[in-house]
């Protein structure tokens, strides 16, 4: 907490101890903590098992770049790397809900609002 304080120290913490967010699997491990209240070891193990990777791969941006592409978990579009035909934003969260087996509130609501058929995320 407090990592994102304005004018503060977000980058210092991110480099010193952070998992890396969407550059890696940090957002996925974070989602298991936020929604399921899993402690770090348990959350990392859950995500690694669901992705079919080693726990050590979770904070490795090189390994996770390909895993996120293969499973459609969303990647960061930048000038030289864009992914117009891959899942992004809310689309990727549909995939994350299924892959991690975790309910995502906005995905459920999107499915309901769009009249999509009931599935794991609906």
């Amino acid at each position, binding site marked *: *907490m*407090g*990592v*994102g*304080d*304005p*004018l*503060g*120290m*977000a*980058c*210092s*913490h*991110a*480099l*010193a*101890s*952070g*998992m*890396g*967010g*969407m*550059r890696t699997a*940090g*957002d996925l*491990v*974070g*989602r298991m*903590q*936020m*929604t*399921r*209240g*899993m*402690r*770090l070891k348990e*959350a990392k193990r859950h995500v690694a098992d669901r992705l079919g990777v080693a*726990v*050590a791969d979770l*904070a490795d941006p090189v390994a996770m770049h390909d895993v996120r592409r293969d499973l459609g*978990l*969303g990647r*960061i579009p*930048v000038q030289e790397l864009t992914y117009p035909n891959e899942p*992004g*934003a*809310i689309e*990727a*969260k549909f995939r*994350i809900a299924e892959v991690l087996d975790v*309910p*995502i*509130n*906005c995905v459920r*609501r*999107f499915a309901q609002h769009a009249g999509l058929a009931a599935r794991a995320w609906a």
Partner: protein
Amino acid sequence: MERAVRTRLGDGSLVEMTPGEIKADLIAGSELGARRAKAPLLEDHEIDHLLDIFSSESKFSAVDLGDEVVLSFDGSGNLDSGTRVDELYSYQSHRGADMLELFGIDYSYKAIKTILSYEAQSMKTAQLNLIAPLQYGAMPDLGRYSMPDGPIPNWSELMPLGRIDEAREAQEAAVGHAVADMVFVADGMWEAGADGMDFDTAGAAGDADLLAALTAIETIKARYPDIGIELGMASECVLGMHGQLTYKGRRLAGMWPLEQMKVAQEAGATMFGPAVNVNTTKSIAWNVARACTLIKPCMAEAEIPIHPNVGMGVGGVPMTPYPPVDATSRVSRAMVDILKIDGL
């Protein structure tokens, strides 16, 4: 003669200290924390490791590969550039945020209630455009319910007059208003697709402030079992502004991080953020040793993730608008290496 290294005080200013002086500060910080909270002292090998971290002249310090933790990044959706959603996108894409938080600049649930429809629309827009988990955050901020800002007699004015019973009644009345506002905002945010709610700096106005947050969390979690809830504290010890309030039989006044964590867990929080405020006249080594000593008892007993507060002026991070990288990175590493925390 020992060489001196440059380190910092809690206000961020540079000072020169010898490793011997740093070690003495580490021990003194741990001893003060242990004495106040009746917690165990840091062990010798932990003091030695902290000494290695704080005696280094390097500009930056970091955890070992594989020891990375989740960063909750509360306060990430500010208006530094463009819209708040632009800023959240920037935190997600450029600053490695593992979680994100949307918030209003008037960081109080009482204020947010009046603009909830706008805030909820921003949440919906953000959820459609982001991938990282996104919570909404604000403070319980019980003081806002007292006169002249709110409808309740001001307990801070009543107490010096010796009208203690009236001051207590006023705080109890304020709790009801605060709980209603926090639940109201959570209802709106959940409908807009939020992944979670953050109750930040809980206990800032004392034990009644914390009771309001715990009561709101219990109600919200019962209503929405899949919602994430982060409870972040305002300080290491809950002030007894009321003094007699309890939560599930536990007296809130005087609680230290271990007991705070237990009531947070019991209320239904999915993440807990202990806060230890910085003494600006002491070295960051002293502050970190004290913070680690106070928080360490949580780690063995917690069933939910522990994300200590390491924003400006808490956890050992200097109290200055631009906390220096050398100090912040050492605090970050020390928390992970010593406490084996779940996140920051």
